[in-house]
């Protein structure tokens, strides 16, 4: 039915275009001087039909699901939902949905079958209603649009106003996304903090979120102190930066000052490849190669290394960050005015001295900005740590131990069963909010530093 509604809309739009263009063209043939070309009259009509009807279909599709399921759940017999929690109610709703889709497991209660039948009926009604609405609205708009055709009618202005409106809408999608992120994180975190006090979350040193979802599951008692989790994140980030910053800096310095043009042309793209490798690949590399190698090396020296050692995740993350740091450093060095460099060389400084004593100090703000962005990358990086880091949160800073991170916890808490009334699920959103706040803060700071630095030499 949805497809039919879209087809109908498409047909109405084309009809509106043809109708008005033909009408305008015939006016022009009769010798009237038109303000706008006939195609604009057509385009105006097409947009007048297309935009509102499209919006109606979109809203309809977005809200039909929630509305129908509310109707179905509201129409259940008295008493069947009494005393059930939110999670159980949503399980029942899911069961009714799957019965309606034809997947019946066992013998459900008759009221569930009835509800499923009602669900199917309501969906069919909604589909028919949508098509009828689309048809009626299209006809009305088609009629209204047809009446606008006149020599002095400024169809081009109309079209351009509507197009401008579309463009403005496009540019606000970014705002809507940010608002969506902020609101959903705040809302779910708020739900979480009603179940777990915010002080426990912020200052607790125990993180054992695997609490039972159903009564028959055996799991821990649950503790939601995020300190060990953020500590693990910090440990891995520090390892990643300790490896990637020197490598990134020195390679950028070499490329910027000493490398021949041909070497630059080869090395830079190769470094870029490191940035283009998907992080799931790095994660697998860490598990497949780096962690076993580290363990073997540890065994050689008699040092016990955990299979999920932070060292493996951190050093592989470092590979990902190298191109990031080297390209920011390269940009920052390149932005230092030539005059400074020439001045130093003219005094008889070697190129190495010029680099270390003039260019590098001058570029430090830009480099720091780049490193900060790398930090925020490292904190927010997910797949490498999900695959290579551990799951158990421990208060340790030993890089040979297994640690867990914020992103690992978010993913593991949300893979599998999710129900939105459980502190386990909601905890992921609270962690997500902390992650968002921290990375946003670092990003804003970093971008400000980088921009200030650029202005300095522009």
């Amino acid at each position, binding site marked *: 039915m949805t497809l039919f509604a879209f087809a109908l809309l498409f047909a109405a739009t084309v009809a509106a275009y043809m109708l008005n263009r033909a009408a305008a063209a015939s006016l022009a043939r009769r010798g009237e001087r038109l*303000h706008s070309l006939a195609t604009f009259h057509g385009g105006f009509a097409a947009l007048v039909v297309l935009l509102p009807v499209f919006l109606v279909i979109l809203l309809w599709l977005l809200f039909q699901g929630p509305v129908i399921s509310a109707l179905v759940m509201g129409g259940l017999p008295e008493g069947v939902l009494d005393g059930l929690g939110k999670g159980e109610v949503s399980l029942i709703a899911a069961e009714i949905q799957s019965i309606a889709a034809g997947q019946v497991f066992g013998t459900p209660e008759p009221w569930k079958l009835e509800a499923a039948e009602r669900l199917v009926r309501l969906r069919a009604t909604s589909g028919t209603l949508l098509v009828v609405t689309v048809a009626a609205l299209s006809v009305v708009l088609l009629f209204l649009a047809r009446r606008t055709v006149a020599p002095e009618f400024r169809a*081009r*202005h109309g079209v351009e106003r509507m197009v401008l409106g579309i463009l403005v809408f496009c540019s606000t999608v970014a705002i809507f996304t940010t608002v969506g992120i902020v609101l959903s994180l705040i809302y779910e975190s708020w739900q979480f903090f009603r179940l777990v006090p915010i002080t426990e979350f912020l200052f607790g040193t125990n993180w054992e979120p695997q609490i039972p979802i159903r009564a028959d599951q055996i799991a821990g008692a649950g503790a939601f102190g995020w300190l060990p989790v953020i500590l693990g994140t910090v440990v891995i980030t520090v390892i990643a930066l300790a490896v990637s910053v020197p490598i990134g800096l020195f390679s950028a310095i070499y490329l910027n000052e000493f490398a021949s043009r041909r070497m630059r042309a080869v090395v830079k793209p190769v470094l870029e490849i490191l940035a283009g490798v998907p992080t799931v690949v790095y994660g697998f590399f860490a598990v497949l190669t780096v962690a076993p190698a580290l363990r073997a090396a540890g065994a050689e020296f008699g040092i016990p290394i955990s299979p999920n050692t932070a060292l493996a995740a951190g050093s592989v993350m470092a590979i990902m960050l190298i191109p990031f740091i080297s390209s920011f450093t390269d940009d920052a060095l390149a932005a230092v005015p030539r005059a400074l460099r020439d001045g130093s060389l003219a005094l008889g400084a070697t190129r190495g001295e010029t680099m270390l004593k003039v260019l590098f100090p001058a570029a430090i703000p830009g480099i720091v900005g780049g490193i900060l962005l790398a930090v925020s990358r490292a904190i927010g990086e997910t797949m490498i740590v999900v695959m290579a880091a551990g799951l158990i949160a421990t208060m340790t800073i030993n890089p040979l131990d297994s640690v867990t991170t914020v992103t690992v916890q978010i993913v593991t808490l949300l893979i599998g069963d999710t129900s939105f009334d459980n502190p386990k699920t909601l905890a992921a959103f609270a962690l997500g909010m902390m992650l968002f706040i921290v990375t946003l803060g670092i990003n804003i700071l970093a971008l400000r530093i980088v921009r200030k630095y650029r202005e300095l030499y522009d």
Partner: protein
Amino acid sequence: MEDLRLTERLVGTDEVKIQARGVNVYYGESHAIKDVDVDILDKTVTAFIGPSGCGKSTFLRCLNRMNDTIDNCRVTGSIRLDGQDIYDRSVDPVQLRAQVGMVFQKPNPFPKSIYDNVAYGPRIHGLARSKADLDEIVEKSLRRAALWNEAKDRLDQPGTGLSGGQQQRLCIARAIATSPEVLLMDEPCSALDPIATAQVEELIDELRANFSVVIVTHSMQQAARVSQRTAFFHLGNLVEYGETGQVFTNPRDPRTESYITGRIG
């Protein structure tokens, strides 16, 4: 300045095409054009001269509302084309620009074929009813711009492949293809070599038969060669406006005299 070739020419007509009264232009805080009154005659070449930054280009761009495209630019006063205030709310700048064409300092053909360059204006304004119509407009415009003979065999080749002088004549052809009544030229020869400049100047003189031409130029020799009337701008003021011969040989204002004799500029 005895070497200026001042030839007396008949001014085509005394009919006023554009009448500007009390025009002021502001860019944000700065006052670029101060209270300018000017009458531009039909079928006449009018030259705007003056030192750099005197506002002559700014004023030229007021005549087809190209200044509208600059964010913080504000124009007050009245400019009338055939008695119609072009800054009136009912006037669509887009239609105005079809009436008042413009040629820019640097030749700026679209990176399309020669044909499409010339046909672009007629197409968007719906001036041609058929392909044949359009072909005719393109040919006529290229002929008037004295480019037909050079371009007729390569109409489907990109306009950017022409030489600088040809490109500028293509831009002129493009401007006259919408059959404007006024043609504004903003230093049309400043990017051209002397031979191309001579060709374009000759063309301007021919265009006078059909259009009212307004040309901004740095070169006083050029103003003297091609124009019948000359306006001298200085620091945003219109200092002197009159017949070209009179302005160059017998300026009324001391500032004009200083500029012409090379003391300011």
